[in-house]
């Protein structure tokens, strides 16, 4: 039986991070993954990540994946692909499939990083071709480069639904609506806002009544739900769609841990069983760890840190790193992880309504109910100050862990501070030079540059733009407001693309002066 110091199951963000961390301390590490490619779901994450530098903020998921793989390779980690682990036993024996047979391995330590699977929801017609997980749509378009359909309805307004919804538009699909049975948008407000301003309606307190079609989806009927989740008669709406994406959460893939005999418990009755873990992810079985989504659903950013925590813990357990080295490293990693556990979306706030931001400002209920900020509430937030000349308008209104805007500004106009969930503050005494670095750096695409007077009674608005075809200077079009409603004519005055912007172009257009605080998107052609 082949022996390794550490066997990692799953080559996603947590698994690869665990493997590289352990290998950097000298462990002989093998990683098994059932897929043909490593990286788990990282390579289909084409958006910029949140967090701070240490969390690889403002880097797109696939680039983080490439970086991790390179690191693993340079440290001599053996990655076995097309090698699903079909069994895990308490003695840390791992059985994996290879080609036409199965092989047994022994890990002195084992880290299970099997991730999660998408939750599903039943409705009439949910088995028809065209109904699929949001993750499936994401794989089809971002990995396989084929659109899942042409007209899509997204069910679920959590971060997965919002991010995949946006990516569907980027891939050239028409997103007809994002709906959610909950009365409030579940994901980051900035993710919702970047979808809403393109003109996609949000229907909260709505669910799918039925998928229509006999051989494949040809339409969908949605309806409003009452407090007991029943459809309100007469509230039904129909959309012609060929695809319905389901994004109603994820469940940890814990089967291997359960099979190995690790203790499982529910955080609350009915919440679903999770492995009982120590702070380093060690389960009730000594030397068996659970890392990343399998130990509880979070973002890939946290999964990568959790992986490193388990990796260094395994190194300590086997004597590859002394107690002091382990402690120093664990402290640093735990500090990085706890930064991601703060703010509006902190684990302790799950399912709760939080009326005020940490700064004591109202959390926008309009944003939660419609997917975008109301025009009259934008000015309440510290990133929005109306001064003359070019300056940023930072429509970042929820306490989420993210600070690339602070580092991006060469003139130190933007301050988040040491606590990265704090709302960014625009310092109007600093001299904004209109470079646009903040606009491109904002992972939430919530920073706009405005100039309230460019002459001829016009103002300019610069927006982050990630669609094709890229407009050209001189293009005549229409400005849309935060809800995606056309408000006025707008001419493109500048289009900036730079390597440092990492595929986010900066589109500047001119609007009448009294519209620059409302105009937040641009479409070619006159308003219909």
């Amino acid at each position, binding site marked *: 039986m082949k022996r390794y110091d550490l066997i990692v199951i799953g080559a996603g963000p947590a698994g690869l991070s665990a493997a590289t961390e352990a290998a950097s301390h000298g462990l002989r590490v093998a990683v098994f993954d059932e897929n043909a490619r490593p990286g788990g779901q990282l390579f289909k994450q084409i958006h910029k990540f949140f967090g701070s530098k240490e969390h690889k903020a403002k880097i797109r998921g696939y680039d983080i994946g490439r970086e991790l793989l390179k690191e693993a390779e340079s440290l001599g980690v053996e990655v076995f692909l097309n090698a699903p682990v079909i069994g895990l036993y308490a003695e840390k024996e791992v059985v994996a499939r290879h080609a036409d047979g199965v*092989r047994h391995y022994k890990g002195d330590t084992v880290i299970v990083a099997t991730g999660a*699977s998408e939750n599903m929801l039943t409705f009439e017609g949910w088995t028809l071709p065209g109904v699929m997980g949001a993750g499936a749509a994401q794989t089809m378009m971002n990995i396989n480069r084929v659109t899942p359909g042409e007209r899509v309805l997204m069910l679920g307004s959590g971060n997965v639904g919002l991010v995949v919804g946006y990516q569907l538009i980027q891939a050239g699909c028409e997103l007809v609506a994002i709906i959610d049975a909950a009365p409030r948008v579940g994901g980051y407000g900035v993710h919702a806002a970047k979808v809403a301003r393109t003109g996609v309606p949000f229907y909260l307190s709505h669910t799918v009544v039925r998928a229509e079609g006999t051989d494949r989806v040809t339409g969908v009927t949605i309806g409003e739900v009452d407090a007991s989740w029943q459809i309100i008669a007469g509230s039904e709406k129909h959309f012609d769609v060929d695809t319905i994406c389901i994004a109603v959460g994820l469940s940890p893939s814990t*089967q291997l841990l359960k099979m190995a005999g690790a203790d499982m418990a529910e955080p609350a009755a*009915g919440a679903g069983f999770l492995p009982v873990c120590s702070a380093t992810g060690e389960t009730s079985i000594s030397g068996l760890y659970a890392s990343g989504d399998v130990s509880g659903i979070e973002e890939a950013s946290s999964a990568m840190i959790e992986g490193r925590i388990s990796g260094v813990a395994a190194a300590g357990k086997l004597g590859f790193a002394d107690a002091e080295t382990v402690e120093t490293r664990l402290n640093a990693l735990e500090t990085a992880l706890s930064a991601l556990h703060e703010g509006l979306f902190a684990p302790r706030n799950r399912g709760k309504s939080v009326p005020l931001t940490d700064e004591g400002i109202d959390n926008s209920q309009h944003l939660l109910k419609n997917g975008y900020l109301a025009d009259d509430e934008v000015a309440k937030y510290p990133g929005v100050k109306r001064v003359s000349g070019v300056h940023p308008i930072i429509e970042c209104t929820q306490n989420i862990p993210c600070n690339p805007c602070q580092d991006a500004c060469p003139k130190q106009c933007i301050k988040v501070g040491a606590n990265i969930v704090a709302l960014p503050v625009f310092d109007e005494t600093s001299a904004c030079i209109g470079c646009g670095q903040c606009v491109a750096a904002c992972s939430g695409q919530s920073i706009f540059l405005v100039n309230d007077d460019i002459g001829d009674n016009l103002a300019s608005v610069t927006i982050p733009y990630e669609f094709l075809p890229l407009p050209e200077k001189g293009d005549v079009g229409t400005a849309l407001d935060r809800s995606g409603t056309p408000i006025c004519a707008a001419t493109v005055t500048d289009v900036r693309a730079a390597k440092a912007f990492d595929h986010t172009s900066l589109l500047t257009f001119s609007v009448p002066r009294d519209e620059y605080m409302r105009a937040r998107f641009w479409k070619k052609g006159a308003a219909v």
Partner: protein
Amino acid sequence: MSAVDRTRDIGEYVPAQDDDMIVCRCEEITKGEIRRAVHDGMYNVHEVRRLLRCGMGLCQGQTCARLVKSIVARELGVRSLEDATARAPMRPIEMSVFANDGGGE
């Protein structure tokens, strides 16, 4: 596996409008079949699986495990239920491959 409380009275099976909804996509088991099985005395996920084969098809319950569990729990009037047993092989595998056991070679 924890003991099953068979003294519990969950009442008669009452047909519901969405009873013909497919829940287990592989074995094509409906919500009504699962609900009926509970009233027939299958008081946990394991027993329902063995009777109906839901979650025992090609995908091994990847999609329906959670759905089946919530239907059974609701029918029993409980919040929490144990998951089905996890067993090898975790992924569909042909018998010829499973039998070609190279051990530790």
